[in-house]
């Protein structure tokens, strides 16, 4: 049975969407402060516009229902789905005013890409972009990576009646702490620790290498946030290649791995239970996945004979596999090299790494290691059942935070999301090909968008067709919400439209 939204439901949805939009507006105060500190007055004005418009629009939406209005789980799903789009619209305002985007749509693309921690970009003349605008681009990774709702919860901005529902609707059904507010704060605590460590390490490196303290510190913060939140934006057009440093690559490699860890595993490590990391099905699946794909990419790169030593092959191979698997999207190759220089095997390995993705309850995207692990266990169970006597009862156990028994429901749930991802990957690839791009490159870009990775063969550029920009935006949005939330939004909108039509007849 389809449940129609009542007027009260719609008002509650409007109110909480408004809270989140106003929250995004308040967060724009941070780049505004940076702009003032750096004396970037024209940029300060861009953020004054951004703050006032987002807070104003948010407050206006909040008027639809009184504060503390109860939010049901299904309404929370819709708020979460809409919030990513509404927050992107608000976040795009200062970017559109920066002069670095060809249109508002391009700025919106980057805002959505930032919030979904994808990292695909349509920015122009990035090498001359202001540091304050770069601060905002990278902060969108931080806000989106931790989750818009988690961000709002942590700063306690008026989510009283809908906190638990929204927290769960954002895909965090695994409770890290018994209390959602504590869970949200723990996520920020882990993030703060890693961001501080990363920023200190990279700042030291940058300053030692000759950057000024302010520029070196800001670049370090940008790189850390983009890496730990598995986003992939960079303040320079060359991305990670700008720094020409194996030390930079090593530090960001560690941050990518930390970013792709389930926050529950971070909590276990924090509590001193390192055994969980060894026995967890997700951690094991991801390790096997990265190991096999790194081997494949190394073999593929060796076959091209482009790289002169095995060290080069390992350095390029491991960095890009971890970048792809974690959903970060940092690259030390030029976009056009993917299609021509790395060879078929390495290219395919990177596409697979992007498609599989990192861990659940992390900032990574893609199908996720937990689902891949559950599906593999499910296949093994089926094989065991087919070989066992008819009377035998075959049970499969696996360890994910606790000992769990594999059920048909779990396997079918994982398969459902797996199929949805694969269908979206292929559909996006076909659409790209229909626009005239080579199929392999189009598939690469489609997987990168849906799995929120950000690696690019060069298709994503300000010159690409508007239709394809919208397709990739939908893919980034769908991938971040893992489809079901997006379907809930579409179904609700469809029902509302149908009811309106019926009433009109």
């Amino acid at each position, binding site marked *: 049975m389809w449940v129609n939204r009542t007027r009260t439901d719609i008002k509650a949805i409007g109110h909480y969407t408004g809270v989140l939009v106003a929250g995004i507006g308040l967060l724009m105060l941070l780049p505004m402060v940076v702009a003032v500190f750096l004396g970037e*007055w*024209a940029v300060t004005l861009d953020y004054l516009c951004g*703050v*006032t*418009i987002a807070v104003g629009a948010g*407050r206006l939406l909040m008027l639809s229902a009184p504060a503390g209005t109860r939010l049901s789980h299904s309404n929370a799903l819709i708020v979460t789905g809409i919030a990513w789009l509404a927050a992107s619209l608000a976040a795009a305002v200062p970017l559109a005013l920066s002069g670095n985007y060809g249109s508002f749509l391009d700025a919106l693309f980057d805002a959505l890409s930032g919030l979904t921690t994808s990292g695909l970009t349509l920015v122009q003349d990035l090498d001359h972009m202001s540091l304050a605008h770069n601060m905002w681009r990278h902060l969108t990774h931080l806000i989106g990576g931790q989750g818009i709702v988690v961000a709002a919860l942590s700063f306690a901005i008026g989510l009283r009646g809908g906190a638990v529902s929204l927290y769960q609707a954002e895909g965090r059904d695994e409770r890290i702490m018994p209390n959602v507010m504590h869970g949200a704060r723990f996520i920020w605590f882990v993030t703060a620790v890693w961001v501080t460590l990363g920023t200190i390490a990279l700042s030291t490196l940058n300053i030692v290498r000759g950057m000024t303290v302010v520029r070196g510190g800001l670049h370090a913060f940008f790189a850390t946030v983009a890496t730990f939140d598995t986003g992939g934006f960079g303040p320079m057009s060359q991305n990670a290649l700008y720094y*020409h440093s194996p030390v930079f690559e090593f530090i960001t490699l560690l941050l990518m791995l930390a970013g792709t860890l389930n926050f529950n595993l971070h909590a276990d490590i924090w509590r001193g239970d390192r055994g969980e990391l060894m026995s967890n099905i997700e951690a094991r699946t991801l390790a096997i996945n990265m190991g096999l794909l790194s081997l494949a990419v190394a073999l593929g790169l060796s076959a091209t004979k*482009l790289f002169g030593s095995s060290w080069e092959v390992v350095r390029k191979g491991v960095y890009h596999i971890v970048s792809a698997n974690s959903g970060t999207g940092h690259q030390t190759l030029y976009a056009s090299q993917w299609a021509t220089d790395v060879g078929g095997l390495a290219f395919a390995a990177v596409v697979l790494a992007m498609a599989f993705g990192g861990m659940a309850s992390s900032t990574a995207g893609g199908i996720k290691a937990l689902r891949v692990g559950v599906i593999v266990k499910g296949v093994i169970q089926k094989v065991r059942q087919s070989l066992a006597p008819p009377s035998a009862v075959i049970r499969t156990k696996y360890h994910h935070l606790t000992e769990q028994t594999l059920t048909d429901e779990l396997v079918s749930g994982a398969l459902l999301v797996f199929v949805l991802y694969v269908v979206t990957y292929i559909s996006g690839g076909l659409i790209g090909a229909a626009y005239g791009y080579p199929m392999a490159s189009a598939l690469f870009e489609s997987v990168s968008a849906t799995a929120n990775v950000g690696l690019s063969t060069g298709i994503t550029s300000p010159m690409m067709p508007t239709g394809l920009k919208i397709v990739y935006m939908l893919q980034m949005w769908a991938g971040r919400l893992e489809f079901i939330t997006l379907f809930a939004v579409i179904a609700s909108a469809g029902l509302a439209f149908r009811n309106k039509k019926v009433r009109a007849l």
Partner: protein
Amino acid sequence: MRRIAATLALIVVIALPASAAAAPLSATQILDQRAKLDGQQVALIGEAIGDVLHADEGDVWLNVLSDGTALGVYLPAEMADAVHVLGDYRHAGDIVLVTGEYRRACDQHGGDMDIHATALEVVAPGSVTERPIEFWKFGLAGFGLVLTGASVLYARYKRRVTDGA
């Protein structure tokens, strides 16, 4: 004005007919011909951007941008001293002509694409980029402020009415 002059200088130098060995190329042209130019002496022209980054004893990295592509140039520190303005938000960087060996996957630098420079010349000096305030944006900010103020006041009014009832 100085930025326009620098850009014109860049266009003129790229467009000038010259001998094949010395013909200045943009970073995009080099990237597009990477297989053909691998291991060859090339002349790259473009804007010095960002930072001069220390590499190892006596050598630095300079990134050169032209046609929307930036390429890493590895060169001795004293050669990089000729560069005075690096491109960023506030500056259009010096336009430099770099001559050196192009490496599609440099064995010395972990397989990165780069140019090992043997000569660097500043073709046009960099300049300060004016970033004037666009006053129409005050109107936009004002609209946002009015929107915020009106919604806050209306919320208060509604609360007072509800409390009164």
